[in-house]
């Protein structure tokens, strides 16, 4: 089981409490599709992804980004139980969505960048450390049911 210090819990809760989920989710997912274009393979039915402007203006992508971020909320509310919390989501991503689990890390990196851009100097090294630990646990849990 993953151990969290009180400081880590506070830092992570603090990051999420300051986030506009709709805005940050949309930005993180769009950035992922632009910076790592092969990730677009999972979004064939989402409409126009032909260039960066199209991706950033695509309402389906924005909505899905927000959905992903609300999904992260589940981990936030169950930090001592993230693996079990994500069992169903992991099965979904493996057996229905067929997402290569390496892509979870790519989206996580884009989310880190979007949060860093938003928080500026407040995104200290210790903040980044806690946030990336959280994301690593989530990514691991999402990949757990793949077989």
């Amino acid at each position: 089981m993953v151990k969290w210090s009180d400081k880590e819990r506070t830092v992570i809760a603090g990051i999420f409490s300051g986030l506009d989920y709709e805005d940050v989710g949309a930005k993180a997912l769009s950035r992922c599709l632009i910076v790592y274009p092969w990730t677009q393979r999972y979004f064939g039915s989402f409409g126009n992804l032909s260039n960066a402007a199209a991706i950033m203006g695509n309402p389906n992508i924005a909505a899905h980004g927000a959905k992903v971020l609300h999904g992260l909320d589940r981990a936030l509310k169950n930090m001592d139980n993230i693996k079990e919390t994500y069992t169903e989501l992991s099965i979904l991503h493996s057996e229905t969505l067929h997402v290569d689990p390496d892509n979870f890390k790519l989206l996580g990196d884009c989310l880190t960048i979007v949060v860093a851009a938003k928080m500026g100097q407040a995104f200290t090294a210790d903040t980044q450390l806690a946030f990336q630990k959280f994301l690593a646990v989530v990514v691991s849990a999402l990949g757990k049911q793949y077989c």
Partner: protein
Amino acid sequence: MSLTEKDKAAVKAIWSKISKSGDAIGAEALGRMLTVYPQTKTYFSHWSDLSPNSTPVKNHGKTVMGGVALAVAKIDDITNGLTALSEQHAFQLRVDPANFKILSHCILVVIASMFPKDFTPEAHVSLDKFFCCVSLALAEKYR
């Protein structure tokens, strides 16, 4: 994933905006790397002080960004432009190349936090590709 003319233009454009802060970016990125990825501290056991903003960290951050500046200047042939640095990393420093990706990520995070408006998704993709090319060039002489 080689650099297109568009990528090179994007890298030079954002570099012109951020290069004045090169030393600060380097120090911050290196300090961040040592904190967020503690395994990287193994390469610096000879430093007296590994805390962020310590003198060795600041000086080395400056050195690293000097290497980045060189890569920007030699952007049309990064592999050959960084031959000497590659030999140094391969034969003397012997840094595991996986760490180049880690430091690249930290540099990007620092640029995002210091220059949020300039670090657009388009700038991000070109810079990410650029750092991939730099990392590959640094690993060129390893084996």
